[in-house]
């Protein structure tokens, strides 16, 4: 995953409304009207957020010209969590060595 894609993902995720939209889309696709309902926001304001999410590749829009339902695209989100996964693995590797040492030390005591 390219770094600028990660930047776009994190920039899109930096907004609480957009995170809430993604959370809603996890339970299935939805129209702009359905997405706007829980927020005290106009449809144009929600549409603006959707554009950011779409540009970041986090959602896609359906072809149906009337409804244009929004759908979650899991790929970039996974790449974003992989970012911390890399760090997690680094600690896991060290700590597995510590596990082995602690086992030896327990034997000795």
């Amino acid at each position, binding site marked *: 995953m390219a770094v600028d894609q990660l*930047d776009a993902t994190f*920039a899109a995720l930096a907004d609480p409304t957009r995170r809430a939209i993604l*959370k809603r889309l996890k339970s299935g696709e939805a129209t702009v009207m359905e997405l706007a309902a829980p927020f005290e926001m106009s449809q144009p304001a929600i549409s603006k957020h959707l554009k950011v999410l779409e540009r970041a590749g986090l959602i896609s829009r359906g072809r149906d010209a009337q409804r244009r339902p929004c759908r979650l695209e899991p790929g970039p989100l996974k790449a974003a969590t992989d970012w*911390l996964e890399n760090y997690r693995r680094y600690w*896991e*590797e060290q*700590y597995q060595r510590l596990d082995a040492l602690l086992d030896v*030390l327990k034997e000795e005591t």
Partner: protein
Amino acid sequence: MTVTITTPSPTELAVTRSFDAPRALVFDALTKPELLKRWHGAQGWNLIECAVDLRVGGDWRFVSQGPGGIKMGHGGVYQEIDAPARLVYTESYDDQWFEGEALITATLTETAGRTTVRTVLRFGSTEIRDLVAASPMESGISQSYARLDDVLASVSKG
């Protein structure tokens, strides 16, 4: 026993892991050079120099050797020592691959012979925090990412 990483604040990373050993033993493994040399470092890296002056204001210094013989030195100063429960120290790298120093707080709690170590690393800025998380053992991509908070984990997993 897996490592959990969270972002408690925009400038911090928290690393939590439990170990099947009593707290005093884990604390020793975190602070005694002869023990640190036996485990510290990611895969492919070994601690070849390790000096610890375990008192408030005392220095610590590690030199690790990695793939192809590459050497990396880092060190800092102990700020608080409450063995075997708590250890606070600064850390910076010789090659300054990230700016300034990190403040690291390790807290050890023991339950039924098992020890949980929670290590909170506080960096000078969100950008530095994110750089470190992106490339833990290497100088690399110096990009800044927006804050990743726990919501991200819930969005992608829950």
